[in-house]
């Protein structure tokens, strides 16, 4: 509860910050300070549950899973703001408002990690999405940004409509919005057809939100058109929050969709991996490649829906952390590049050896090379599928093959940085930026050597 209330309040604080100061650095520092308070209050929430004694009427439920994810999301945002904060304030004329919107998105994220009623799921998704439409279109003079914003908005509103129809049908079948009550009412053998139909519609709309194929088509355009700083935010924190909402709703309920679920989900996983990986191979722009690679990574995260056991809950949290940290780093460097194509990275290793080295770590982590966090994230996901169901072996093999494909396009960036001659032009890179990059890279290697460093906190 702390995180929800405080993030909303901090959003208001950021709005007022623009009244009192025009100084962009000061605004960024206020945001960083706010995020630190938010993190502290969320940690406090884990140990003392009643900082705010609110009668929730079972609308929200705070468990260690949600609170731990909140911590991951807040830490990722913190690192993101420290790394790219100076670029956020450059996007347009309203730096403080952008931070306010980021806090509102975080409010939506924290609702999604703890909802216990379909009403809160709906509100959380909307609170998360509406500020994002704005952030996508914040580069107002840029036509690409405008169009990305409009496309994102239309897709988002459309998928909301579908989700609401699903919720209505589910209500018709169960007479309740509370997740536990729905579970109780519809888990009897003859629950008819309304509940599975409603669940299917909700599934489709959430698949839209996390850009799983075949509902991914908006993703590359929107990620490509949005200002790079905000793409970084959208592709990491928001996307993983979508997955957390997805897992919370579906991990225990897949039997309710009937035997068809056992067919639908593998098909969606393979389609997502296929579309993401194969299309990413043919991209010329690194930003667009990252958009497709985020679809491919979503394919791996979908494994968390395939099964429901300890490994998959740990796996999705680990994946959220590993993927967010690495992607934030890569985007942080991408923003500093003047040319977003692969050729733009030529010879970066000579000019900026440290930046190139950390970028390599991030890319290796996304590819899932051992000794990086990405390896264990992928390992947990695949192992959870195998553990629950031996017949999932073929699915795991397909996933590993696609992971091998992904190595190709990640290595193209590394190859450009180290083995090609060129003059990689960057904007000014200061000491703080390099320092944060090193911290991110160290985090990835630490988690990659011993993932229990992170997961220990989950059971704490």
């Amino acid at each position, binding site marked *: 509860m702390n995180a929800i209330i405080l993030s909303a309040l901090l959003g208001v604080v950021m709005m007022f910050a623009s009244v009192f100061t025009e100084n962009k650095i000061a605004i960024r520092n206020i945001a960083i300070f706010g995020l630190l308070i938010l993190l502290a209050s969320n940690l406090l929430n884990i140990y003392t549950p009643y900082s705010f004694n609110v009668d929730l009427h079972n609308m929200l439920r705070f468990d260690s899973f949600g609170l731990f994810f909140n911590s991951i999301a807040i830490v990722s945002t913190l690192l993101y703001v420290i790394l790219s904060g100076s670029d956020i304030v450059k996007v347009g004329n309203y730096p403080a408002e952008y931070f306010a919107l980021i806090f509102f998105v975080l409010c939506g994220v924290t609702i999604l990690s703890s909802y216990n009623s379909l009403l809160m799921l709906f509100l959380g998704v909307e*609170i998360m999405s509406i500020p994002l439409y704005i952030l996508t279109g914040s580069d*107002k003079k840029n036509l690409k940004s405008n169009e990305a914003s409009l496309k994102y908005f239309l897709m988002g509103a459309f998928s909301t409509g579908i989700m609401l129809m699903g919720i209505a049908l589910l209500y018709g079948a169960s007479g309740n919005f509370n997740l536990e009550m729905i579970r109780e009412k519809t888990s009897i053998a003859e629950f008819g057809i309304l509940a599975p139909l409603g669940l299917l519609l909700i599934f489709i709309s959430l698949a839209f939100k996390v850009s799983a194929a075949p509902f991914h088509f908006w993703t590359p355009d929107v990620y490509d058109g949005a200002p790079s700083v905000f793409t970084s935010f959208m592709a990491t924190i928001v996307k993983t929050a979508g997955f957390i909402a997805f897992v919370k709703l579906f991990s225990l309920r897949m039997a309710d969709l009937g035997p068809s679920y056992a067919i639908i989900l593998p098909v969606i996983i393979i389609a997502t991996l296929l579309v993401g990986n194969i299309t990413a191979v043919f991209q010329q722009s690194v930003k667009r490649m990252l958009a497709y690679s985020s679809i491919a990574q979503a394919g791996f995260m979908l494994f968390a829906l395939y099964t429901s056991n300890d490994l998959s809950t740990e796996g999705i949290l680990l994946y959220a952390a590993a993927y967010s940290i690495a992607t934030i780093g890569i985007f942080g460097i991408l923003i500093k590049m003047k040319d977003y194509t692969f050729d733009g990275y030529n010879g970066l290793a000579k000019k900026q050896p440290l930046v190139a080295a950390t970028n390599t770590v991030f890319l290796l982590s996304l590819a899932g090379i051992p000794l990086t966090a990405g390896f264990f994230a992928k390992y947990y996901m695949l192992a959870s599928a195998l553990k629950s169901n031996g017949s999932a072996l073929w699915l795991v093999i397909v996933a590993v093959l696609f992971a091998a494909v992904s190595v190709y396009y990640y290595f193209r960036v590394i190859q450009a940085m180290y083995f090609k001659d060129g003059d990689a032009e960057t904007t000014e890179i200061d000491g703080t930026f390099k320092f944060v990059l090193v911290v991110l890279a160290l985090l990835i290697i630490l988690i990659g050597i011993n993932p229990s460093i992170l997961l220990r906190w989950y059971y704490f």
Partner: protein
Amino acid sequence: MSAIQIIFWFLSALAIVSALMVLISKNPVHSVLWLIMVFFAISGHYILLNAQFLAIVNLIVYAGAIMVLFLFVIMLMNLNNESEPQKNVWMRLAGAVSGGCLLMILVSLVRQAIEINNKVAEMKVGDIGLIGNLGKALFKDYLVPFEISSVLFLSAMVGAIVIGKKN
């Protein structure tokens, strides 16, 4: 056929015909007006179902505020028949056919649903749709979502200003 049934069928027909007219009209202003007709028909349904509060809110919020906003934007842009872009016939046909198929599938699924056989939406029983009862529920059980939706409004407000203001 009782009076209620006659009103039900009339309102349903009105809603569907007006919804189709929203699609078919070439002039955006006409589309808006037809959509307002849909909202009136749906409000009529709410009154039939004894949900008076929602009927009034539907008129005030949707027909009153939201559609006026739409109308305002359309007038601001000075859209009319001539400026209306058209998709080619095949695309439109494909859209209509796929929508029709979707409706067929959904309806046939619902007709098979045994759990709602012989169930009726009661029209004369109960007064949950009255403002007093809904208000009590809203400010007791639904206080948390009510407060949280204020965040939504705040972000929409900030967003509309960030996006809408001219530099």
